[in-house]
Every structure is written in structure tokens, then in C-alpha cells.
């Protein structure tokens, strides 16, 4: 009999995922610290001054990485939501709710750094252009998801209701991403895209990518930490929790 490379079904059960997450957390924590240190060092000391914006552009290293993560986490959340609805998998629902607070934090960080950047460069804290408005909606969607899940007592219903909401809201993500192409906005276009070579200096690009990786590792760490808490909370009465997890 051909044994599959990895038995995915085995890891989709909370009881097996709980110890696995515990093993993964230190690695991702180390990756976060390392990448963030390197990324910040490049951003502040190595990357050259920008010809147009001087030193002020350095906020890009946080802003772009945070914006990417806020959209990416929403997509991952929608993916787990779809899994939760179609396969009725408990762990998928838990993953979605573990990701939401980090996503909301990044969406907020993106808006905050954006307005700190906008004031000196554009001359305005905030403008109602398509990119900014749709990113604000994304933040509200995260808040709505968290509020809905915390208002429903039955965890199974909370998972499914949240899943529907996140799947309805995922339409917003491509709108945010392409808004700078579809409308002529005040916000500049994307510096890094699939179709053309990046329009920024090499070191700047490296700084940005490493910061994005750092945020990515951070999101995974936080999601794993949170999913462990959620598993404990929900499986409190199960035998394996009493035996192994609460020692």
C-alpha cells in the first residue's frame, strides 16, 4: 500500500495539531526576530536615501509589508473559511479566528503608517481615494468578523457564521489591490508586481521583502499561539487535553 507522504488528515485534528504547533512556534519566533532585525537594519542603515522623498520614504518598509500582510491574511482566512464550510473541519474554523486579530492589526498599522507617510509627502493625512477607502473597509471587515465571532456562544455556529462573512468580504481584496490601476488615485502604483520588474533600488527592495517575510513569520507565530489557546478552550472536556496538554 502506498503511504502518502504526509497524512494531512492526521494534522487536521486539533489533538495532533496542538503538539505540532508547540514544536513549530519556537522556529517561527526565531525567524521573526532574525528577519525583523535584518530587515530593520537594512531599512534604516543600508538602504539609500530616496531621490524624491529623502529619508521620509523609509516608512515604506513597514507600510508596504503591513498592507501586503493585511490583504494576504484575509485571503488565507477566506481559504480556511471555505475549508470550514465545505469539509466541516473544526481546525479550519479555529485557524480563521486565530488569524483575524493579526490581520486587523496589520490593516490598522497599514492605515496608520500610511497617514504618517501621507502628511509629509502628499500634504494630507487622509484622502478619500479608492485605495485608502477600500483598505479602510478591509479593516472594518476584520472588526466585523471578530465582533460576530465573539457574539455567538456556540463555537460551531460562530465558525460557520464568521466563514460566511469572510467569504462575502473577500471580494474587497482584489478591489484594494487593483484600485491604483483601475482608478487614477493619489496613491502611487505598485512598485513590486508580478508583471513588471520592480521599480526600486535593489537594497530597498531587499529591505522591503525581508520586512514582509518578518511580518509573515510573526503572523504565523501569533496564529499558532492563538490557535493553541482556542483548541484548549474548546476541547477542555476532552480526555487528551486533560492528559497531555494541562500537565
Amino acid at each position: 500500500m502506498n503511504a502518502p507522504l504526509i497524512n494531512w488528515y492526521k494534522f487536521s485534528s486539533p489533538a495532533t495539531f496542538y503538539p505540532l504547533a508547540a514544536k513549530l512556534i519556537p522556529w517561527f519566533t526565531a525567524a521573526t526576530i532574525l528577519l525583523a532585525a535584518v530587515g530593520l537594519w537594512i531599512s534604516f542603515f543600508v538602504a539609500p536615501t530616496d531621490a524624491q522623498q529623502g529619508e521620509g520614504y523609509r516608512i515604506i518598509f513597514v507600510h508596504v509589508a503591513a498592507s501586503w500582510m493585511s490583504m494576504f491574511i484575509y485571503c488565507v482566512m477566506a481559504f480556511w473559511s471555505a475549508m470550514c464550510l465545505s469539509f466541516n473541519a473544526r481546525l479550519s474554523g479555529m485557524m480563521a479566528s486565530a488569524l483575524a486579530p493579526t490581520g486587523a492589526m496589520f490593516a490598522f498599522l497599514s492605515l496608520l503608517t500610511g497617514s504618517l507617510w501621507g502628511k509629509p509627502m502628499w500634504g494630507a493625512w487622509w484622502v478619500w481615494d479608492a485605495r485608502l477607502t477600500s483598505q479602510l473597509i478591509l479593516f472594518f471587515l476584520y472588526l466585523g468578523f471578530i465582533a460576530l465571532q465573539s457574539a455567538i456562544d456556540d463555537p460551531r455556529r460562530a465558525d460557520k457564521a464568521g466563514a460566511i462573512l469572510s467569504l462575502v468580504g473577500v471580494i474587497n481584496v482584489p478591489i484594494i489591490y487593483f484600485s491604483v490601476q483601475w482608478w487614477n488615485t493619489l496613491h502611487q502604483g505598485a512598485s513590486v508586481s508580478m508583471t513588471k520588474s520592480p521599480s526600486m533600488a535593489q537594497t530597498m527592495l531587499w529591505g522591503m521583502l525581508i520586512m514582509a517575510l518578518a511580518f509573515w513569520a510573526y503572523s504565523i507565530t501569533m496564529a499558532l499561539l492563538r490557535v493553541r489557546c482556542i483548541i484548549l478552550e474548546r476541547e477542555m472536556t476532552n480526555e487528551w487535553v486533560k492528559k497531555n496538554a494541562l500537565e
Partner: protein
Amino acid sequence: MKPRHKRMVLILAALAVLGVAAMLVLNAFRSNLVFFYTPTQIANGEAPHNKPFRIGGLVKTGTLHRDGVTAYFTVTDTSKDTIVKYTGILPDLFREGRGVVAEGRIGDDGQFTASEVLAKHDENYMPPEAKSAVDQAQQAMKTLKP
């Protein structure tokens, strides 16, 4: 109707709905749904009348002059120009030859008076040395052309 047929009908209907929606969205993108208007659009009379709107383009090189705290400059999209009058502090990134978005209205004298000026920067980030190298190369290209 059998369940299989019903599912087919539903899928076809969904595709039709998506098609119609896509058509409507494409139609919308052909008409004007914009954050700002270009000088060409203004020249063609596409911009709003007697109502504030935003104008966007590049600040034409050599057109910025000040009269006390009032600044005058020309916004261009390389084919048409619009003269903008603005009283107040211009943002740091406001330079000749760079992008700008100004909000204001066209007065009876036909001049655009801005109430707010925002600097629009592009998505290119490079160190000053690289920038001057690029500029020099562009100059060289221009002088080489007959």
C-alpha cells in the same frame, strides 16, 4: 426538473449573472469615474462646472512663480495645460516636473483656484546618484535625437 438539471440551470444562471455584472463594470470603466481630472479632460469640458473638483498632472517645469504667499503654476499632462492659483503652504514634495493633485474650482475668469494641493509621487524609489544617472541618460537620449 431533475436535481442534475437544476444544478446545470443554476450554474448557467450564475455565469450569466457574472457576465452581465462584468459587462456593466467594464462599461463603467469606459466612462469617467475618477479621483482627479487631467488638463485634457478639462479642456474637453469633461470636468464639473461650478463645483469643486480635483485636477491632476505634472507641474510644468519653469512655470512656478510666487506672488507673496500665493503660488502660480501650470499643471500639464503633456498635451494640454491648466494654470493653477494657490494660496498657502505647498507640500514638501511639491517640485517642478513632479506629479500634483489640486482640489479647487474654476472661477468666472476661467482660472483654476486651488483650495488644497497634494503632491503625488510615483512608485519609483532610488538613491539620488541613481536618479541623476537616469536623468543624465534621458538627457543624452534627447540630445542624440535629431
